[in-house]
């Protein structure tokens, strides 16, 4: 054995670790964040937020790579194919949003329950286990990518089902981590005090975790496969996630604007009734064309047409409360992102969803860039925005509850980040919408959905230019993201004024 070679490697590794420690310390000195301002529970929350931001970057990066491939098909061919980039793009999104939500709940649970998180140590272990697992899954996606047509591929590489591609071992890990999270929520509220928000949150988490198990089975019959697959995807993003966001929104309106609890909780119940009342059977809009019976055309069409109603209610709720409190609040960027959430959710999920949800239209739009257009605005508008609002709430406390107002010297950063991110995503949405319209007409209606028709539509100048615009707006989104991170790291630095006390009116 060549020991001198081994020693060299060890020395190099030690030097590298010293160097990275130095960089980390320099970074800490520059960023000047003081964790003693945060409770132990909130320190766990900001861990989740930190990983969420990193995954947000991965989402944008791999989205840009996939967007490039639409324009230059040879780009990274057989190195990082479109399928790999696109998979990481959407998986990073799903996972960063979950990280964000878990972070949000850990952020407010102590205040809401009036006691410390019960299983904090367990929560920390779960965080590291989950983060390790996510890293491993992504590395396997990048380096192994695909496997032979055997069960082992589905268990250890990739399950090949959009959005829930994570291999089966990771599925089980995710369920365990979610159970720990659930335990923490229930045990903490039980030890402290329950509230309307706590009750809705707990029941919603039961549904959220339970639904995930519906996606953990292999089935030969693709109609059955997609039937259960939509139970997970739809009942997550169009039902349980929406209610979770309603919970988070309710708490933040109380926190930011000092809205009365009774008003907030009544609104929350109204939203739950409307959201689940429309969203659960709205699932039917995914059952139009997968082999399932014709009654889904009626059930899905009807209930999904109702799905925008709770989102309108949320806009009314957020805007009315802001107006009623004359926009007096303790954290301007956070409130701006909450307002962006209300509108983004309504337009992205509500309007864009409704536009193509009726089966008479959907038969032409299903499986075109229409869905991508809807997906971009809805996921960003409904979920990215509220997480970003919480990043600002967290950084404010991390700095010791300092003033964060629109008039501050560096406030242009968060305003521009807000503008660039929203503008970038909206631009991509419009570009994809144009591509989707073009596909619906040329590929679907005129050419009858053959492969020839598909490519006729893909090669059409209006589609091609839409893809260029999408990439440009993707770049704008990236610019907004970079500015957002810079702002999050620097906002409130050196600020001595405390945030104003917001009182109930």
């Amino acid at each position, binding site marked *: 054995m060549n020991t001198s070679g081994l020693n060299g490697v060890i020395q190099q590794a030690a030097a590298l670790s010293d160097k990275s420690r130095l960089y980390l310390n320099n970074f800490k000195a520059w960023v000047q964040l003081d964790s003693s301002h945060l409770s132990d529970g909130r320190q766990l929350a900001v861990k989740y937020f930190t990983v969420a931001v990193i995954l947000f970057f991965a989402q944008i990066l791999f989205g840009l790579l996939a967007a490039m491939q639409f324009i230059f098909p040879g780009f990274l061919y057989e190195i990082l194919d479109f399928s790999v980039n696109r998979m990481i793009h959407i998986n990073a999104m799903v996972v960063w949003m979950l990280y964000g939500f878990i972070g949000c709940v850990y952020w407010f649970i102590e205040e809401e329950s009036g006691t410390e998180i019960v299983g904090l140590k367990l929560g920390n272990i779960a965080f590291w286990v989950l983060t390790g697992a996510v890293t491993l899954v992504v590395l396997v996606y990048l380096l192994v990518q695909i496997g032979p047509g055997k069960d082992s591929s589905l268990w250890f590489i990739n399950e090949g089902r959009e959005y829930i591609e994570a291999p089966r071992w990771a599925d089980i890990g995710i369920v365990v981590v979610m159970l720990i999270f659930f335990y923490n929520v229930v045990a903490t509220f039980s030890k402290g005090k329950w509230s309307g928000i706590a009750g809705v949150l707990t029941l919603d988490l039961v549904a959220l975790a339970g639904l995930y198990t519906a996606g953990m089975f292999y089935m030969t019959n693709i109609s059955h496969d997609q039937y259960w697959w939509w139970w997970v995807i739809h009942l997550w993003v169009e039902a349980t996630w929406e209610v979770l966001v309603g919970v988070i929104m309710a708490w933040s309106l109380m926190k930011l604007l000092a809205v009365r609890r009774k008003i907030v909780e009544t609104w929350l119940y109204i939203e739950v009734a409307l959201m689940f009342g429309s969203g659960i059977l709205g699932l039917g809009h995914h059952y*139009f064309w997968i082999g399932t019976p014709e009654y889904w055309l009626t059930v899905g069409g009807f209930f999904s047409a109702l799905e925008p109603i709770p989102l309108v209610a949320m806009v009314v709720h957020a805007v009315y409360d802001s107006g009623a409190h004359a926009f007096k609040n303790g954290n301007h960027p956070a409130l701006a992102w909450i307002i962006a959430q209300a509108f983004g959710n309504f337009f992205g999920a509500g309007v864009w969803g409704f536009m193509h949800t009726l089966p008479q239209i959907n038969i032409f739009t299903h499986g075109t860039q229409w869905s991508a257009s809807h997906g971009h605005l809805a996921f960003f508008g409904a979920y990215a925005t509220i997480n970003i609002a919480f990043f600002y709430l967290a950084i404010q406390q991390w700095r010791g509850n300092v003033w964060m107002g629109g008039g501050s010297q560096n406030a242009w950063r968060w305003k521009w980040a807000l503008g660039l991110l929203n503008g970038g995503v909206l631009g991509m949405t419009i570009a994809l919408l144009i591509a989707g319209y073009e596909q619906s007409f040329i590929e679907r209606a005129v050419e009858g959905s053959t492969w020839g028709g598909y490519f006729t539509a893909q090669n059409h100048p209006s589609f091609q230019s839409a893809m260029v615009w999408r990439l440009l707006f993707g770049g704008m989104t990236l610019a907004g993201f970079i500015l957002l991170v810079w702002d999050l790291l620097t906002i409130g630095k050196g600020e001595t004024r405390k945030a104003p006390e917001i009182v109930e009116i």
Partner: protein
Amino acid sequence: MNETPLWASESFWKKTAIWVTAGSFLILVVLTMDSLSKTSAGSKRVPAYNVINKKIDYQLNKELHKSMPVIGENEFLFGKEYTEEEARQLVDLGKKTTQAKNCMNCHTLLGNGAYYAPDLTKAWLDKGWISKETREDMMVKFLMDPENNARTFGSNRKMPNLNITEQEAKAIVAFLKWMSSIDTNGFPSNFKTIEAEE
């Protein structure tokens, strides 16, 4: 303060939320049981796996104003008649391979997936395979070596080589043939199959 009317009270909406959620979920469970039984392999909507022994077409039903799968007489796949169990195993391997190769992150299946490559719902029936005589052979060759058998329709978008074995390729073809026989309520609309006369 004035008394809150019932319709605006917290307790009224709490109860409403619980009843609406429970009721919707119950209806969903009932519909799910019905849908699963109506879409099990061997049902009217989702044929048994040995449908791969038959000729499959997809034609406009003028009375219903939608296209429907039409199952014809025997038309063996790879010149072999499969029993139901053999057919199930073959389709199973094909389906599993499409998952292991992550097909769904470029293609759509039953319209679901990504939009970088064509929909596979009726891929078996597509005119792109030129003639029925060459179809099986072309599909297998394409799957095993997509780079050298590229069919990009002028887009320059090529499927990458996914190390698909011959056995897996044949299984994928069987899976695609079976999938094309599913009654998808007329999706895709207006599709002209390889069987259709010009």
